[in-house]
């Protein structure tokens, strides 16, 4: 390994290779607090050619590697171990071009999500996917996780916005996927790459679609005396045919934490749940009419009150609590697990009841703040990781919540990815045949299995480990 590390220093310069000390600690975990595993080394290349050279060197020495953006991932995806090298992409942070006529931009993977929209705002354009971590997370990490965000309800998730990708394959070969206008050039390999969690190679250049910033926006805050009513109101809004730009829910536990924090947004703390609904469009008159209609629907479905924010300042205040909810929750206990699961919208009321029951059963504080319009839940489990019994209860409660969501016809992750955290749940939603094909799909990109090994597909659950299963077919 030491000769490999010397070669890496030769490529990127000594100061961009870290092999010991606190520098490694930073890379020992991502946004998920329960995994802590320092890599053998961290290398921080300064450009694409250095990425290629680094990957070639590692491939030649058969050393596994883990691509890493900002490390805000919540499934342990960007974490390696003492046998692997982390390739941090934070220095590849140039916005290469903004094409306002065709509404697209080409960026390096380390560009921070919010920075891209900041740069395109003067042209009246923005990059629509807006994960709550957008002030920190990178476009490369968004591509790898297929990140979502509040406004993905109307505008779609990351994969709906990626047109072209330049990828360094795990053997160091550079390929380009997609095409300038987004039409696949052959099978849709851009679509396949997005969400591959760093296991298919490293994205070094990303061309994204930009959308016009809507001219008119209204944000509504509705509060409810029961979570069930709020869940039913969500279905009513969606059924109206008016597509909200965002439709977010926070339960009482979350509201109380937010209101006690510096991010207080003026949410009523006695409400069982609040809904934040946003409507946007080009014309003031139309957006007014639509939000008035929705306000009526919310009221008819049990909202105690509905407030409408029109000015940018009022809207920002309403959103602040939502956007900083994770931060506020992080302050009430030493540790916080942010869960991520999706259920059919119509199942929201029942599943929320069930989550409350699970919280009670395991004596864990669970606060819900989530993308209600998509049925994408984020139960937050607050705990003290120093207490082994509490840790165990959190593990069990998290598992029980997953099972409840699956039983309701849902899935185990809507936007945070599988990483290593959710490997164990994969066999609950995919059969052995499907998992085997997923694993083999990965091997088509990475025959040596060096790119972020051990994530996404639980190898033990694949077909040939099952007694009586068909033998694995030949794979190149």
């Amino acid at each position, binding site marked *: 390994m030491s000769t490999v590390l010397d070669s890496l220093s030769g490529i990127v310069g000594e100061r961009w290779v870290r092999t010991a000390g606190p520098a490694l600690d930073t890379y020992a975990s991502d946004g998920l607090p329960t995994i802590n595993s320092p890599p053998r080394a961290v290398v921080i290349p300064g450009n694409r050619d250095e990425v290629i050279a680094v990957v070639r060197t590692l491939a030649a020495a058969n050393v596994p590697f883990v691509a890493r953006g900002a490390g805000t991932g919540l499934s342990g995806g960007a974490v390696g171990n003492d046998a692997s090298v982390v390739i941090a992409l934070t220095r590849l942070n140039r916005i290469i071009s903004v094409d306002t*006529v065709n509404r697209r931009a080409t960026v390096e993977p380390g560009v921070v999500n919010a920075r891209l929209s900041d740069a395109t705002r003067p042209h009246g354009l923005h990059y629509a996917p807006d994960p709550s971590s957008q002030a920190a997370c990178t476009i490369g990490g968004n591509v790898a996780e297929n990140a979502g965000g509040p406004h993905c309800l109307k505008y779609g998730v990351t994969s709906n916005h990626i047109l072209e990708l330049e990828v360094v394959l795990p053997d160091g070969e550079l390929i380009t996927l997609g095409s300038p206008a987004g039409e696949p050039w052959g099978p849709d390999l851009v679509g396949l790459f997005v*969400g591959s969690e760093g296991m298919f190679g490293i994205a070094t250049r990303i061309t994204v679609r930009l959308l016009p910033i809507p001219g008119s926006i209204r944000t509504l805050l509705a509060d409810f005396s029961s979570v069930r009513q709020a869940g039913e109101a969500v279905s009513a809004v969606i059924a109206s045919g008016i597509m909200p730009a965002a439709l977010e829910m926070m339960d009482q536990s979350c509201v109380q934490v937010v209101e006690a924090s510096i991010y207080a947004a003026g949410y009523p703390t006695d409400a069982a749940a609040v809904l934040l609904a946003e409507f946007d469009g080009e014309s003031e008159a139309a957006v007014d*009419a639509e939000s008035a209609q929705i306000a009526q629907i919310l009221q008819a479905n049990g909202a105690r009150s509905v407030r409408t924010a029109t000015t940018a300042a009022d809207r920002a205040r309403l959103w602040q609590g939502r956007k900083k909810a994770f931060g506020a929750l992080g302050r009430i206990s030493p540790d916080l697990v942010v869960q991520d699961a999706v259920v059919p919208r119509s199942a929201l009321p029942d599943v929320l009841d069930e989550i409350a029951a699970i919280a009670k059963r395991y004596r864990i504080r669970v606060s819900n703040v989530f993308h209600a319009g998509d049925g994408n839940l984020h139960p937050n489990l607050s705990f003290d990781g120093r207490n082994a019994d509490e840790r165990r209860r959190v593990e069990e409660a998290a598992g029980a919540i997953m099972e409840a969501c699956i039983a309701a016809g*849902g899935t185990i992750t809507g936007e945070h990815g599988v990483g290593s955290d959710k490997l164990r749940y994969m066999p609950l939603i995919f059969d052995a045949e499907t998992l085997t094909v997923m694993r083999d799909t990965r091997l*088509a990109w990475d025959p040596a299995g060096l790119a972020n090994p051990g994530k996404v597909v639980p190898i033990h659950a694949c077909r040939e480990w099952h007694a009586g299963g068909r033998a694995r077919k030949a794979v190149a």
Partner: protein
Amino acid sequence: MSGAELTIERRVRSLLGPDGVVDTNPAGVPRVAPRTTEACALILEAAASHGWHVRLGGGSRWTSDDAPADLTLSTRGLTRVTRVSPPDLMATAEAGIRWSELKRALADHGAWLPWDPPGADRSLGSIIATGTAGPLRSGFGSVRDHLLGLTLVTGDGRIVRPGGQVVKNVAGFDLTRLAAGSFGAFGLITAVHLRLRSVPRADVTLARTGTRDELLQMAFAIRDAGEAPAALELASPGITGGSSWTLALRLVGSEAAVHEARRVAAGTAGKLEELAPADGAGFWNTLAENAARGEVTLRLGVLPAGLADALDLVTHHLDEECLTATIAGGAVRWTGAGSAGQLRLLRAAAAQRELPLTIERAPWDILSALGHFGAYREGVGRLVGSLRRVFDPTGVLVIPAGEG
């Protein structure tokens, strides 16, 4: 009919029992239409072990009838809509259902799939396998953007179920997107989970005629001024049956939003004529049918700024009889009769401009020579080949040579 074919037919019959229909096509090739995914898997598993070459089809003649094969596997027996959930805005349907029937079944539930694929009454599976989107692509994205998950039978008869039934899902690799638009290279799609919308309250079509380039300018002005239209489509006279080019704008949504968008568009593009609702629907139907009426249909992925150039290119190499441009969706489509030589030259010229040209449908002699996609970009061919071997290890599925 040769003895070998009879053997295949007999084998297939004994595998399926009452679980599917078996007949022979006019060329004497046995054709089987199983009624379940499992039966499809049995057929492909047998094909893999006996070395049969299988052509996949939906019965709507969208794949070349004349592709050489030992057996045709059709989705004609898979026509059920197994679930429509209006509150969740999702549906599950089998791949062989006709588009018109699916549309009707969804409408009965107040639900809508924002697709208007070129072609007359195609099967759902063929729309997905060929990734053919129509004018609504401008406002709602491509076919693949509406799929939540699917059931795929691989070339060697394994049943794979990526994705799920919920509208947001990042569990596992996105094999759904790989299968959609890959022209059957990775297996037979037997069922899909679809993401729906509510039937829009208002649905208005506005149109005007003029010269191609003046309409193109207007289209850009509309795009820059207003609400994102559901469709903003430029169509040649051969498509609409008119005497000059047509620019058509479709607005859907709430009454208020459509009203405002109509006002803005009128202010931008001058005399746009509003069609009566039935005429609007008729206009888009005619467009869809004519946009696939030739024996060859193809599409180019084009940036808005390159549309005029791309239209010129197709006109130069082929003709401008049946041409459409999806302004915001970044696509130019052509249909007609073209030779392999013409298409090869067009593709080469398009590739120089970084415009992928996908041949959606053509007689087999053209497809086998040119492929659906043509030469891949550097390094991509090897990757596609490796992926093909995962899904079709023994090469059962009939696809154009050089395409993996």
